[in-house]
């Protein structure tokens, strides 16, 4: 299994990004597995609140979704995530698993757990979606959370760049690269269709 672990603050656009990545994976990379009868992609959704919404959006697209609700997988549902992941590996052994964390979670904490206890994992990539539109507000109001989410990400997607002027986008990009200089960085607007070449780079190693 190749795992894509998505993080990023509330409202940054994780679900919109995941919808596009899921479409890309389903169409471009997993055609060979379609005959097996098993899904080539499974999505694990972790949401705040009793009522799941993101899982319904993804299911409406025909995607295979497992929910972990009423808890956060970076703390209270840590063990449940590992159990869920290992069950998916045993029952379906999909080529890809996407995990959407809550907007308040620390993805690197989850990545550590998965690396330690997950079975059958071929690769694990942490992808953090940053909100360009609210970057200034979030950097001021909760800098610790935002920086910690971004600092150890393998990939950073600066989303909603359509809401800013190009020079403002450059400034935010600089701020982000100061926090994490080694991660692959892409500027996108998931409101519209993103160039599939970006998704190819995101899910591979940027080649």
């Amino acid at each position, binding site marked *: 299994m190749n795992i894509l672990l998505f993080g990023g603050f*509330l*409202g940054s656009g994780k679900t*919109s990004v995941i919808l596009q990545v899921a479409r890309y994976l389903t169409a471009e990379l997993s055609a060979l597995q379609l005959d097996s009868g098993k899904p080539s992609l499974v999505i694990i959704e972790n*949401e*705040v*609140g*009793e*009522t*799941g*919404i*993101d899982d*319904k*959006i993804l299911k*409406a697209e025909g995607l295979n979704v497992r929910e972990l609700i*009423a*808890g*956060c997988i*970076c*703390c*209270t549902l840590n063990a449940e995530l590992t159990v869920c992941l290992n069950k998916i590996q045993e029952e379906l052994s999909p080529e890809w698993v996407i995990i959407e964390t*809550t*907007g*308040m*979670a*620390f993805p690197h904490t989850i990545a550590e757990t998965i690396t330690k206890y997950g079975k059958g994992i071929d690769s694990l990539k942490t992808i953090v979606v940053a*909100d360009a*539109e*609210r970057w200034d*507000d979030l950097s001021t*109001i*909760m800098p*610790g*959370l935002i920086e910690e989410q971004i600092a150890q990400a393998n990939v950073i997607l600066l989303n909603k760049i359509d*809401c800013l002027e190009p020079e403002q986008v450059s400034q935010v990009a600089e701020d982000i690269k100061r926090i994490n200089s080694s991660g692959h960085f892409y500027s996108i607007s998931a*409101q519209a269709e993103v160039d599939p070449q970006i998704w190819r780079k995101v899910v591979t190693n940027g080649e």
Partner: protein
Amino acid sequence: MVSDQDLLKCSTKHSDPAIFSETYSLALLEKVKSERVKQALTQWIEEIRDWTSAKACFVGHIKVFVEGQENLWLSSTGRSISSQQSQGWSEWFLDRATLCVTVIVFGTTKEALKETVEESLKTCFNTSLPNMIKGF
């Protein structure tokens, strides 16, 4: 059972947001065009946004999903409202659907958020669809 409030507090080590998360069965007295439901929900998001702004609160996110024969997804972070819908949404006439809402706001209490959200939801539906709501 640990509440959502406690969970977020423990997971973030930061602020303590108020969370409202509810599922409603929306029942109307007769079939109406889906766009009228969208209009009511858009107005509702705008009212929540204005309320948070007036109270100097910070919106985590506001999300709405209408689930039925067709689907509608609205979301906002307190600025613009983004909207996505299934292909046949605009032509759909409905008299019932499931309505899922989640509102996360920093700087207010769970009780104040619940009161505002529920009151505003009723007002918006009664304004956009007067005498049409059979149940929530």
